């Protein structure tokens, strides 16, 4: 590990801990709302930063560039996927934000309990969301270990990277809660954008012309520039639904809606957020395509390492190249850590509020906040252990995060719009959706007709909710008619 790399990464990690300490000093002691939602007082800039850094993970750097390199221009679908997350926010965030402020929601289950008055439903949906979050956290910890190995040139072993970075996250997260996490997200979000554009500029400068690359691809790998076929188009549309709906109901995403200071801050943040895929995922797409001019001929799993190979080439440009390379790796690490800390904080809040808080209603907020902090360390310990050991078959369950998470969506999207939707209908529809997703997963069925199995399962889930709403309306109309009232709502 060079001195430059050690200085940049060390400085970045020290800054995170400092921001954790600053957040700790600003927090009101013993308040769950203050710790997990920054007192529901996040203004435009910080809210935007934390929404952005949570939505765009290390996968944007590493996975998205690799996928663009592998499938070509059809990866434009990633712009649609990320934009659809913001569009789905618009379907439920306006009323949810009002309700959250009015009733003091902290976790997603608070809304479920308020809306459906059914603790059984709240427990089921919380479990599904916790599995999705654990998956996310586990994937980020694995990525952190790989990044530590990459940045140090193999001098830091994988397990040490996971442990050290996990501890750093634990320190600033348990010190200042969402306030610290949001401030670190500002740093991490800026690093992510700057890193992407540095790489894009350097690769474009070295390769020269995108037109030449495209002409070359049209001859050597025509599928990368050709119009996508029907199956790929179906997959494109399905990915927008799966990612848009699934990512929009991540618990940490829901909690950021709760944490917005007011309608104005939330609106301004979403106005900018909807534009971010145009610069973020498009930049990753361009890097992946242009990389063909720098490092041709990679395929399959090797394509996933294309960003690392591009950075190795950039590092050879001299001291400037080395600094840029380390900065970009630090930016990728930042993107990974920002997603991990958000997931961790959300899981911690669910343990404190929904598990311990429900079992022991006599516990005060201060005690629950303390339990939540300890829960964070226990979760970090468990995920570190898991990341440093090969997962067993049981843990294959956490591979299906979006397919499961999307089954929670009707409770929010339809639940906030249709007062007729009752708890029993949501319960039955969610169970059917979850069972169908699990059955498809264990049968090895990823997609039918290009559309993800999870999207099909969600369609059934939504249809069952729709039938329930129609029946409730019909029953309501009949009751009104029987009571001598005319018409229905």
């Amino acid at each position: 590990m060079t001195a430059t790399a050690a200085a940049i990464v060390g400085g970045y990690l020290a800054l995170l801990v400092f921001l954790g300490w600053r957040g700790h000093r600003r927090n009101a002691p013993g308040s769950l709302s203050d710790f997990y939602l920054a007192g529901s007082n996040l203004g435009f800039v910080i809210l935007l930063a934390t929404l952005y850094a949570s939505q765009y993970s290390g996968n944007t750097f590493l996975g998205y560039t690799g996928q663009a390199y592998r499938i070509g221009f059809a990866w434009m679908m990633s712009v649609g996927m990320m934009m659809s997350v913001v569009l789905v926010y618009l379907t439920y965030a306006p009323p949810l934000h009002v309700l959250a402020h009015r009733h003091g929601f902290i976790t997603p289950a608070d809304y479920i309990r308020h809306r459906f008055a059914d603790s059984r439903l709240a427990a089921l949906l919380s479990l599904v969301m916790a599995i999705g979050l654990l998956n996310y956290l586990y994937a980020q910890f694995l990525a952190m270990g790989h990044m530590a190995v990459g940045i140090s040139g193999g001098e830091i072993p994988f397990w040490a990277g996971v442990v050290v970075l996990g501890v750093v996250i634990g320190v600033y997260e348990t010190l200042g809660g969402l306030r610290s996490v949001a401030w670190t997200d500002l740093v991490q979000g800026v690093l992510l954008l700057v890193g992407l554009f540095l790489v894009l500029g350097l690769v474009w400068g070295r390769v020269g012309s995108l037109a030449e690359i495209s002409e070359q691809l049209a001859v050597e790998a025509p599928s990368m520039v050709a119009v996508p076929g029907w199956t790929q188009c179906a997959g494109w549309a399905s990915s927008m639904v799966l990612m848009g709906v699934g990512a929009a109901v991540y618990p940490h995403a829901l909690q950021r809606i709760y944490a917005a200071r007011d309608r104005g801050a939330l609106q301004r943040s979403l106005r900018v957020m909807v534009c971010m895929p145009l610069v973020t995922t498009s930049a990753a797409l361009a890097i992946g395509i242009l990389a063909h001019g720098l490092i041709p001929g990679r395929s399959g799993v090797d394509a996933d390492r294309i960003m690392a190979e591009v950075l190795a080439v950039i590092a050879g440009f001299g001291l400037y190249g080395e600094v840029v390379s380390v900065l970009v790796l630090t930016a990728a690490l930042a993107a990974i850590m920002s997603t991990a800390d958000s997931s961790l904080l959300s899981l911690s809040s669910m343990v404190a509020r929904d598990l311990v808080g429900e079992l022991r209603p006599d516990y005060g907020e201060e005690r629950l906040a303390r339990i939540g902090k300890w829960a964070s360390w226990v979760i970090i310990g468990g995920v570190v252990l898991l990341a440093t050991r090969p997962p067993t078959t049981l843990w294959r369950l956490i591979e299906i995060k979006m397919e499961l998470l999307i089954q929670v969506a009707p409770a929010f999207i339809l639940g906030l719009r249709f007062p007729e939707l009752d708890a029993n209908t949501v319960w039955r529809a969610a169970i059917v959706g979850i069972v169908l997703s699990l059955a498809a997963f264990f049968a090895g069925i990823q997609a039918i007709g290009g559309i993800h199995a999870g999207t099909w399962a969600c369609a059934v889930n939504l249809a069952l909710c729709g039938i329930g709403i129609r029946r409730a309306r019909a029953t309501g109309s009949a009751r009104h008619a029987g009571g001598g009232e005319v018409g229905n709502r």
Partner: protein
Amino acid sequence: MKMARTSRTADAGPSRALGWTIVVLLCLSVPWYFPAGDGRPFVFGVPLWCVVSFACYVAIASIVALRLPRLWDERGAEEL
């Protein structure tokens, strides 16, 4: 003047037309309607179908960024 405009916007309620425009643009962003081909012509090195797709996303982002209050619907909160 500004207050009068804000009040009129709030009174008008959320716009269904804008919502459906976004849905149509999302459908058009997936290039299912382009005839099968090798991706040519290219526009600055980008296949035309990809440029159209990107243009749809720019249009959606512009609608949301510029007309968000017309898409903002808090009505569910009143009844829950």
